[in-house]
């Protein structure tokens, strides 16, 4: 990233053209054209906006996940946090009698708390992020199942569905939310000390520590953010599907991590952009949609996402063979 600024202008163009994000955008345009040519329902505004609606839940989590992966960590618990927050929302409203706006706040706070707990164990006890979030994947899903006892909550008031099903200025409400999240995340990552610190931590944590960066506090913030966004995602999801179940969000970690890694964020940490993640997100959503329109069933699309995840990591690592074995 920093090399870019130092290079002479003509080199800059060449580098920009061979950057992961640029290549990905080119692939995306080609894929759009092909899918559009095959199916005339695909490239319609209605379909694209609808896909945007479906993309929001994963997209919201993908923003902080980009941060997490840039710091060299990972958060596998996001899907379970979605389930936990969905249950918290439905349960506190229906069973505890909390007014719905209050229930939403509780769900978001619980999401942030869930992420905070992850961050606390990762930074204070030094539990590796992978293991911590595998443990909390089980723990949070277990709380969701235990509290709800497998029962679902439905019958929300009409206004609640605005977030998940409504439109605002011609576009799905949650797409605006996602747009705001993308802008904030992009600016934060690129233009703030906080954002730049993430790269420093991911490239060399020890060096970052010695440079006086508050590494632990930044990591704690990043994991808390991840939980909070999973909470917001749960809110959007519950509002869209009009019901609350404890199995909500299962497998989200796959979609989110696939989008981030496909978008060029190195799984080893230290590099990545929000811009890339957005393209990764769009590609995965359009891939799903395109496959569905050409008659491929939902279950088969996860095969494609798995393949895309492995293939894009392979591609990225062969493009930058620099990391030590086992890293």
């Amino acid at each position, binding site marked *: 990233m920093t090399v870019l600024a130092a290079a002479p202008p003509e080199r800059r163009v060449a580098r920009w053209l061979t950057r992961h994000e640029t290549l990905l955008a080119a692939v995306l345009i080609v894929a759009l054209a092909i899918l559009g040519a095959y199916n005339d329902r695909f490239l319609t505004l209605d379909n694209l906006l609808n896909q945007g609606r479906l993309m929001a839940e994963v997209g919201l989590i993908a923003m902080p996940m980009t941060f997490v992966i840039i710091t060299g960590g990972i958060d596998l618990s996001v899907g379970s946090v979605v389930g936990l927050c969905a249950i918290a929302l439905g349960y506190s409203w229906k069973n505890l009698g909390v007014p719905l706006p209050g229930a939403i706040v509780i769900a978001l706070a619980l999401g942030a708390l869930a992420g905070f707990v992850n961050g606390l164990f990762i930074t204070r006890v030094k539990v590796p992020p992978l293991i911590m979030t595998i443990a909390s994947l*089980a723990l949070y899903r277990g709380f969701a199942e*235990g509290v709800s006892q497998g029962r679902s909550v439905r019958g929300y008031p009409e206004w609640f569905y605005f977030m998940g099903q409504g439109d605002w200025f011609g576009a799905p409400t949650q797409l605006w939310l996602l747009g705001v999240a993308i802008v904030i995340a992009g600016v934060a990552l690129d233009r703030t000390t906080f954002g730049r610190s993430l790269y420093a931590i991911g490239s060399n944590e020890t060096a970052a520590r010695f440079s006086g960066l508050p590494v632990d506090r930044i990591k704690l913030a990043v994991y808390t953010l991840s939980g909070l966004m999973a909470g917001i995602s749960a809110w959007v999801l519950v509002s869209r599907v009009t019901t609350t179940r404890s199995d909500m969000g299962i497998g989200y970690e796959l979609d989110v991590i696939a989008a981030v890694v496909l978008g060029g964020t190195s799984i080893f940490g230290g590099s990545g952009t929000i811009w890339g993640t957005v393209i990764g997100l769009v590609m995965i959503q359009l891939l799903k949609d395109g496959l569905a329109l050409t008659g491929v069933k939902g279950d088969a699309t996860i095969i494609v996402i798995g393949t895309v995840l492995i293939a894009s990591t392979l591609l990225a690592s062969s493009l930058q063979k620099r990391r030590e074995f086992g890293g």
Partner: protein
Amino acid sequence: MSAVAIGSSVASRASWLRRLSSQEVLLALAIVILAIVVGAINPRFLLARNLSDIFLGNAYVAVAAIGMSMVIISGNIDISVGALIGVLATISGTMAVAGYPIALSWFVPIVVGVAVMALQGAVVAYLRIPAIVVTLGMLSILKGGLISVTGGRWISDLPDSFHLSNIELFGILPMPVLIMIGATILAAIWMRNFAPGRAIYATGGNSEAARLCGISPRATIVMVFALHGFFTGIAAILFATELRVIQSTVPPNLELTIITAAVVGGVSILGGVGTVVGSTFAAILIAEIASALVFVSISPYWIRAVQGGLILLTVVADILRRRRRVAGDSR
């Protein structure tokens, strides 16, 4: 770090007390104490029928946890194991129903298991992709593949001779339990006393040091994954032959249960430490807890929270223990 770890696991002057506080002994005690406590609350828990259900129904978890332990000790992770068990069980059942010799329908899944896992190991070791990415991708490929191919149908009408649990040694020890015990003992001896087994610890403890000692960390990782595939294959057969039908979905988050067994069994998530005896005990303990919840009238919906709590507890204890040991050494 690894010198400390290996040193402590081999140390001959391990005191009586230390041996008593080892993970394996603690787990064995936990299994017995839990049985006594739950038995006191509800005597039906101790009926032979229930105890045998616990063992028969979970032998496959213990066997899969053996391979998982090796993978984690080598410093990697595998989250595709649950999906692979589902695929292999379906292959096995389909072959048995289609009239292939029973022995063949037991053998082919093991071969496929070894092949799939060795492939993943090779990608991890030689293409340097983290195991979490490779196995997460493989998880979705296998899961999606299984549902698309089977369309969610169950396999029934399995031939009688297909069911391993019908075979009993001395009339009391059913085959799955025998396989669980045998596999655990053989794997434990092999890992403790044979060079390739020791190489797993060396690779997980310090890959660079292992390389300098003449061990190939890459070959070791491929070997570990291949072995893990072997145990996964056996686990899949135990799973397939356990019930009268084979569903095209395995218990959700099966990989989590298997990882929990390995981690709670004392396998350090930092690599380099752990035994398969511990993981088998842990698998039994987890199954016992799940069964006990029902007998003391706690909703089984809490089982996954218990699992997550157990992982967290063991991991934190492991890290604190190591930290204290390192502090003690530097004094």
